[in-house]
């Protein structure tokens, strides 16, 4: 059997194995649709807010209109008292409340400071931040309009009045993900993780089914076997990665700042390191249903420790060190820096070298693992023949 023939056999075997095909092809395609599905509307808008208007003046009504005009807030009900509004939140009829105090207009006209109160359901942070942001902006707008009117009434020139209201212009802009959209935040890292996890599962199931039987996997030396299987999975994953990082990133409008060459250069050690680690991982199993379970349970910790959901600086250091051994972790970070945040190649070089290092490390472990599996099988066969 030539090397090419071996790889072809390997690919045909795994494509015919329905459990692997289900994960590799079905899973990857299914997740490409399912994971981004809840997020495709990008941002949280129109959160329901109940108003407690204790003033009932022209100005309080203007404030309510301003709040309702904010894209993040939708005024859904008027409550007679704070308790009533609170009851609405407890009934899940509203997610936030706005209290306009009594004498709101009166005090403002008299030149006294007044305080608007608002509250949001912080069981849901995105809802809470949308409500707070929407109401704060509305409150500031009402306030600065009053300030402007006051200054104009005192005889300040309009141009000067505008500058006095806002002495400094704050130009506050999000970068890399300008719309602050959820898909652009989650997808780049998550999709690499899906590739990583499914590759592990595919290799795990394939290996677990083979180690206890004689077959084509024994034809070459352990090193050659490991390299060939890594090659056959890399070929399949080259296509799946192209689908994810090419088409899906484009379709979901994720930041794509790196050149094609750079992305390819990054994906090469990522796929090889993942394949090598997957191979080493697969030698731990002889039961076909186990690799999926282990990878399933590890998915959430790997995602959260990667550093884009929760800042690395406040994750306990031992967890961060440990996570550096998982190829997905440097892989995700390098991809984010290179492709989404537009870092130069020299900046991601350490992560790239780390991926090659992991590739080497896991290659050695995989060879050792296959070697041990072979010895175990030989011992088992010898035992069987003795019995006969």
């Amino acid at each position: 059997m030539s090397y090419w023939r071996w790889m072809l056999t390997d690919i045909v075997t795994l494509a015919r194995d329905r459990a692997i095909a289900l994960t590799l092809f079905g899973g990857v395609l299914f997740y490409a649709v399912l994971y981004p599905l809840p997020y495709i509307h990008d941002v949280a808008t129109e959160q329901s807010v109940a108003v407690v208007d204790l003033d009932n003046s022209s100005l309080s009504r203007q404030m309510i209109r301003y709040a309702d005009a904010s894209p993040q807030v939708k005024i859904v009900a008027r409550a007679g008292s704070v308790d009533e509004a609170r009851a609405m939140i407890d009934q899940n009829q509203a997610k936030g409340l706005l209290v306009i105090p009594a004498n709101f207009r009166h005090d403002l006209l008299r030149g006294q400071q007044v305080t608007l109160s608002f509250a949001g359901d912080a069981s849901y942070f995105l809802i809470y931040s949308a409500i707070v942001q929407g109401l704060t902006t509305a409150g500031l707008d009402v306030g600065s309009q009053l300030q402007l009117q006051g200054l104009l009434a005192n005889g300040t020139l309009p141009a000067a009045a505008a500058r006095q209201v806002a002495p400094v212009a704050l130009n506050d802009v999000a970068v890399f993900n300008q719309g602050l959209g959820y898909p652009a935040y989650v997808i780049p890292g998550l999709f690499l993780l899906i590739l990583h996890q499914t590759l592990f599962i595919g290799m795990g199931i394939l290996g677990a089914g083979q180690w206890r039987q004689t077959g084509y996997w024994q034809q070459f030396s352990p090193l050659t076997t490991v390299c060939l299987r890594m090659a056959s999975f890399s070929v399949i994953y080259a296509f799946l990665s192209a689908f994810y990082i090419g088409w899906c990133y484009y379709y979901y409008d994720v930041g794509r700042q790196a050149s094609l060459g750079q992305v390819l250069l990054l994906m090469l050690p990522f796929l090889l390191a993942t394949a090598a680690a997957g191979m080493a991982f697969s030698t731990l199993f002889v039961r076909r249903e186990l690799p999926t379970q282990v990878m399933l349970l590890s998915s959430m910790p790997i995602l959260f420790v990667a550093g884009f959901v929760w800042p690395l600086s406040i994750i306990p250091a031992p967890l961060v060190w440990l996570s550096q051994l998982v190829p997905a972790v440097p892989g995700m970070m390098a991809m984010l820096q290179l492709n989404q945040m537009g870092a130069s190649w020299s900046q991601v070089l350490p992560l790239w070298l780390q991926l090659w290092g992991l590739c080497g490390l896991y290659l050695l472990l995989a060879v050792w693992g296959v070697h041990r599996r072979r010895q175990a099988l030989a011992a088992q066969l010898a035992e069987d023949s003795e019995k006969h």
Partner: protein
Amino acid sequence: MRALLRREWLALKHDNWQLALVSYVPLLGFMLLWWLFSAALPRGLPVAVVDQDHSSISRMLGRTINASPVNQVIDYPNQTEAIAAMRRGEVYALVTLPVNLRRDLLLGKQPQIDVRYNGQFLLVGKLLSAQISLSLADGLHQLARVNLLSHGVPSKLVAAHMQPVTTQTTALFNVNNNYVGFLVPPILVALWQLIAMLTFANAMNRELTPGHWQQAYQQGWFKLIGAKALFYGPILLVHGQFVLALVYGYLGLPAEQLVWLLPLQLLTLLAVWLWVVLIFFLLRDSARVISFCTALFAPAFAFMGITFPTANMPLLAQWWRELMPSSHYIEAHVSLVSYGNVGLMWQHGLAMLGFLLLLLPTLALAYWHRPKADKVEALS
């Protein structure tokens, strides 16, 4: 029944993985995920400040930004280096204090302060944007105050002049915006659901050998599955309660009337297991049952509606969400823990009885795949 329970116990004893799955694996997972988020409140996040003005005012603004516990100012001599650090993810925001900031302020021209924050790391970016605006506003208020006083505004009126309308914000049910209280319970519930799914799928898969398959039909699947549920139910409920004890007991997060969550967790378990049994009869192959269940349950966390609000999901996602037991559980959980509304909790919890509909296709499949009479004879 006792014999069936004994059979489950013996099977569990001889299956190392299953034994791990009902004992230390969930505990390890729960503790690990909690430890990861244990900082609870992000603080000391690096912010690059490029001071191009080098005046008393620009330095003061730098200090006010640094004074917030969330920000940790790192000074950069120029924008090029600061931008490079931004792209590497070493700093999460960049504040540029422009040349002539002080001069323009004194002359009454409107200088512009540029703030750039990392939207790719959404959580950190949004937090820093809000904190930097607050800090800068605070610093500028001090300046405006001096300015107004020097123009002869009485000190009592200064505050009203600067800011006629102030705001007071309250984060309901999670007063200090604690991320442990917000993220950890749903994450642990998602993990618990996965554990429940896996243990039951493994328990079911044992009936797949031809001998067992036939025996199961003779014995009656209801009895067999009932025994499994009776056996694994209490174990998983203990894990479920451990999550609550960890989060609301040990960490002392506020919660009301936690007792009610026990029947709720039981309902969730039943809903998850109804799914597993349906998939089991559909595929009848251990690796494929696990793969399919994994595909179904792995994204459950995204669909819970905790991180991204349910109302903003597209309709298709909202439908898919209804199929996940965890989304019903978490709504009931929030109704109870946050709102203390037992009625609403039961409303969400009892919606899970709808999963009983899964029994119909399950029964049909079980009937369809019954051992045929001629085959039985051939075997015997």
